[in-house]
């Protein structure tokens, strides 16, 4: 579904991603872990070209999306993205946040977009917030809305960039529950996270990144049970007390 070939990314003289090759199949739940500065967020952001790669190829559903003939705006409709800091639109109500893209990009008419938004709101238990503004919501609620906003576009893959890192500890659970539910329904997803418990439980595959490379990858059982690479072992020993 997503294929990455020889992906390199540099910021000035700083090499953030070094020759990454990776394929993500439909239905996979890939969780990326690693120390900060290892390039995992940059890797994720390269997948929908929020970060344009310095070199290499990104393929999505059979088309190379970082070629000049590809309309990236059409591709991004199929790739939902959830950010660490939510980035809800503060000037719009919750309902407007969710329906803005489907309506303005003429994917749905207004009434069906609203209907879909209400269904999704009910799913994450925030029906009563549809006329609220983002500033009136807690962090966990905002992130659930951000997920719903992405889902309203009917994406075929969801990218999560540290979706719980900016949340109070007591709100992490409600957001992870929503992501877990999505995973159970078969959504393809790539998740950058520091939540090892979540990775162990939801991932079909765990990637460990360090210094711009994917150093090790395995099923969660193998990855957490018997890590091979010394860097992985060191990292896991630090994060799992």
């Amino acid at each position, binding site marked *: 579904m997503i294929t990455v070939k020889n992906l390199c990314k540099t910021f000035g003289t700083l090499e953030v991603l070094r020759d990454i090759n990776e394929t993500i199949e439909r239905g996979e739940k890939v969780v990326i872990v690693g120390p900060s500065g290892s390039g995992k967020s940059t890797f994720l952001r390269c997948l929908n070209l*929020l970060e344009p790669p310095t070199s290499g190829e990104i393929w999505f559903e059979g088309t190379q999306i970082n070629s000049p003939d590809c309309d990236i705006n059409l591709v*991004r409709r199929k790739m939902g*993205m959830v*950010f660490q*800091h939510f980035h809800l639109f*503060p000037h719009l109500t919750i309902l407007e946040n969710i329906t803005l893209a489907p309506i303005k*990009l003429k994917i749905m008419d207004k009434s069906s977009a609203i209907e879909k938004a209400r269904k999704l709101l009910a799913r994450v238990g925030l029906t009563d917030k549809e006329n609220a503004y983002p*500033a*009136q919501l807690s962090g966990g609620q905002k992130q659930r809305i951000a997920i719903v906003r992405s889902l309203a*576009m009917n994406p075929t893959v969801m990218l999560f960039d540290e979706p719980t890192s900016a949340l109070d500890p007591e709100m992490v659970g409600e957001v992870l529950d929503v992501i877990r539910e999505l995973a159970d329904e078969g959504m393809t997803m790539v998740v950058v996270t520091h939540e090892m418990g979540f990775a162990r439980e939801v991932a079909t595959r765990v990637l460990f990144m360090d210094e711009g490379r994917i150093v090790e990858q395995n099923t969660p059982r193998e990855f957490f049970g018997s890590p091979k690479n010394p860097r992985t072992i060191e990292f896991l020993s630090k994060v799992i007390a």
Partner: protein
Amino acid sequence: MENTINGISQILSNWWTEFRADFTNNFIDENRWQFLWKGLLCTLQITFFAAIIGIVIGFMVALIRTTHMHTGKLRGLEAVCRLYTTVIRGTPVVTQLMIIYYVIFASVNIDKTLAAIIAFGINSGAYVAEIVRSGIMSIDRGQIEAGRSLGFGYVKTMWYIVMPQALKNILPALANEFIALLKETSVSGYIATQDLAKAGDIIQSRTYSAYMPLIAVALIYLVLVVGLTAGVNRLERRLGRSDNR
């Protein structure tokens, strides 16, 4: 005691008589108030149309410059815009006004009010551009990323997501700019435009009153500014709905 009171009331009554005579002389005789009225209309006309030109130029310049900053495109246009802001903000508005009227339109018989509108419009555009640019840059980059990640192109992201928020943030600064513009138009007398300030001069030149026409002109400006400020405050409250917590 009684003497003092009598003295004060005598002074007051003298002052009042003088004031009335002065007032009549300056504004009632020969319908001189009409100078003020026509001057007021002229000032409002210059301010209004100059503000429109300023908004149009200002937004264009700001969008060109921020687009260049965000995407690296429009390099040539951006350089022109930067030059424009530097020159306009680096020279006094009176000089610009006179250059436009006496140099650029020297060989054309242009209406003085129109010349003033053009001069103040071009001048205001540079300030509006900086205000709008700061407004756009004050919006978190994540807003653009969120818009782009949903499939909006750059232009639509700016239109639906960034500009509405930027506009709300810059409204007070923009209002200040137009209030300043309204007052700055008082120098358009330099090219003999018969605006409000000039109207005061004209009356003064006929009545030789030292303060009455000036105070009247000042009061009219004050009323205009206070009215404008009240209007902006109402608009701000309406735009502030999403801030409610």
